């Protein structure tokens, strides 16, 4: 009934963040943050540690309710919805600190299919044909996504037995299993080696091109950001300090100050960025 194959690449609606503020007991983690993720683009959100990037993701996925401001996906107002409702609108995310659940890779990926499947307690308990058929179809699609993300050989391996890089990829695959229209990636390559990074970057580029989804990317690896992003928003102490294409942002003095404290060492930063870019 519900075909588990990816939907045709209808452009996702724009994701609009307007005036979002989040306050934690005295600390303003996000201060009047606004940006728009244009349909089908990769939008990077960068900034030093503690800038509020993960907090921003928690607002987008409904885990935190902002003190002020709204987030809209097309006509839907995400800031009013619970996380599971946001998921059913096609917003999927990964976490900075890996948050996988127990069981095998397959179990995790099938959790990603949860929002797309229907089988309830009764149908599953009685193993009604509809539930069995649905499960089989979704399992096949999950396996496809595992292959796509390079987890094909580990499909039935318990997640806890996988090395760090693979577990990180399980999260990416699980998010893709939601067939998202908007994919939120919080430091997807942190802690990975060069080969793993390249592979993850390849996957992100690939799914973006094939499925036409929007990607919001938080990442400290500037090389990756510069290669993948269409647009970049820079946060510092919860405020947007710069915004533009990767090239514009790279030259922005505000950005250099945010990353390096003061204006000194401008040259080093620029060269560091360009060098990473070349690899």
């Amino acid at each position, binding site marked *: 009934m519900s075909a588990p194959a990816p939907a045709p690449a209808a452009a996702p609606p724009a994701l609009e963040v307007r005036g979002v503020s989040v306050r934690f007991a005295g600390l303003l983690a996000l201060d009047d943050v606004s940006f728009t993720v244009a349909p089908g683009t990769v939008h990077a959100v960068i900034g030093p540690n503690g800038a509020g990037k993960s907090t921003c993701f928690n607002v987008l996925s*409904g885990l935190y309710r902002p003190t002020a401001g709204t987030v809209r996906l097309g006509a839907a107002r995400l800031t009013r919805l619970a*996380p599971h409702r946001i998921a059913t609108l096609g917003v999927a995310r990964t976490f900075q600190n890996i*948050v996988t659940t127990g069981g095998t890779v397959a*179990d995790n990926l099938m959790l990603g299919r*949860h929002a797309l499947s229907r089988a309830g307690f009764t149908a*599953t*308990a009685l*193993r009604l044909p509809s539930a069995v058929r649905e*499960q089989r179809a979704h399992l096949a699609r999950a396996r496809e996504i595992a292959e796509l993300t390079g987890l094909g050989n580990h499909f039935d391996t318990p997640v806890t037995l996988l090395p760090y890089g693979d577990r990180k990829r399980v999260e990416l695959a699980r998010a893709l299993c939601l067939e998202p229209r908007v994919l939120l990636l919080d430091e997807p390559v942190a802690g990975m080696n060069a080969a793993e990074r390249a592979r993850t970057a390849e996957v992100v580029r690939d799914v973006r091109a094939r499925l036409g989804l929007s990607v919001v990317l938080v990442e400290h690896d500037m090389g990756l950001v510069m290669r993948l992003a269409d647009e970049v928003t820079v946060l510092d102490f919860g405020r947007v300090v710069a915004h533009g294409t990767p090239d514009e942002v790279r030259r922005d003095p505000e950005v250099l100050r945010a990353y390096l404290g003061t204006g000194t060492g401008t040259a080093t930063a620029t060269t560091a960025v360009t060098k990473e870019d070349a690899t």
Partner: protein
Amino acid sequence: MSDLRSLVRRRGSLLLSALLLCALPFYLDAFWLRIGLFSMAAAIGAVGLGLLSGTAGQLSLGHAFFLATGAYGYVWLAGEPGPGLPPAVAAVLAVLLAGAAGGLFSPVAGRVKGIYLGVATLALVFLGHHVLLTADSVTGGFNGRSVPPLEAGGFAFADSGPRLTVLGVPFGAEERLWYLGLALFALTCFTARGLLRGRPGRALAALRDSETAASVMGVHVARYRSAAFVVSSMYAGLAGVLLALSFRRVVPDYFSLALSVDYLAMIVIGGLGSVAGASAGAVFVTALPLLMTRYADQLPLVATPGSGDGAIGPTEASRYLYGAAIVVILLRAPDGLSGLAGRARARLRRRPPVTGPPGAASDSESSEESGASGASGASDDSDDSDPSARAKEHTP
């Protein structure tokens, strides 16, 4: 190919244990059948609790309340005073009633998490016990009520009705109920396994491991928490009906906090989150006190019931024993009997099969066997003492 072989092997061992369990009433006397019957009822309840506590990570001390709802629900619905419905209808309604009782609790069960739910459900047991004692017209008060036998299509699961002899063995209440218990236990395993391997089970396990991950992947946290509670209550209700039928009398004192704790012990000993484990734990916790009562005179330090010479009674002694079992399991094998069995099986597979002791790799149903296979030898010493006297250990 190895997949196919393991499938055949698993199907084969399932069939074999099913045959064995079906054959037992021809060899065992009523005492052992009763132990089996209580074990099957407990296993059904334990599987339900395992779903809630093992899979969804929600502690419940209120299981006795739902067992009581099922048991008393059946007695009232099928009995007099009560609507006097056909017993089969009453049994089904009693299960639904237990589910509805679980549903009424869902504002709490959906929001309160883990160990805090345990505290919240504690109140249910005391409330339930109080109601059972005071609502005389429905529950019969302190002395309880006798249980109307289950009848379906003119066939009674009791000693009453036309005599039934199968292959020269007279089929009394125990023999008949044995097959009912087996069928219900099989139904429980079938449905619970289906749930665990399907979408709801995965969502519940995800909730247990990370509420955050589950919710951003689309799991409605509160709804699934309360659904787990309802489903677990329904299994408890089914177990309650079977217990009532086996006891033939329901009394309030049986459904105490200690019973809830017994069920937690079952799933911890068996291994959280596994149907086979919960069943094995249920057999262990159920059979132990009954066996100790029976063999009290041969055991050191254990008083024979009624002797009152200051030693420990068999029921307490068995509580100490499985208390110790829990401690050992928590320290040495936190995944319980099912984890131990799984590891033994894995080791057997890796080594040449000659070295392994036969039957070390137990399956879900072999746990039932083990309770009974030890039994078949012992039953030869023609024990004709009134078996119901043993069961009274449970019904004060």
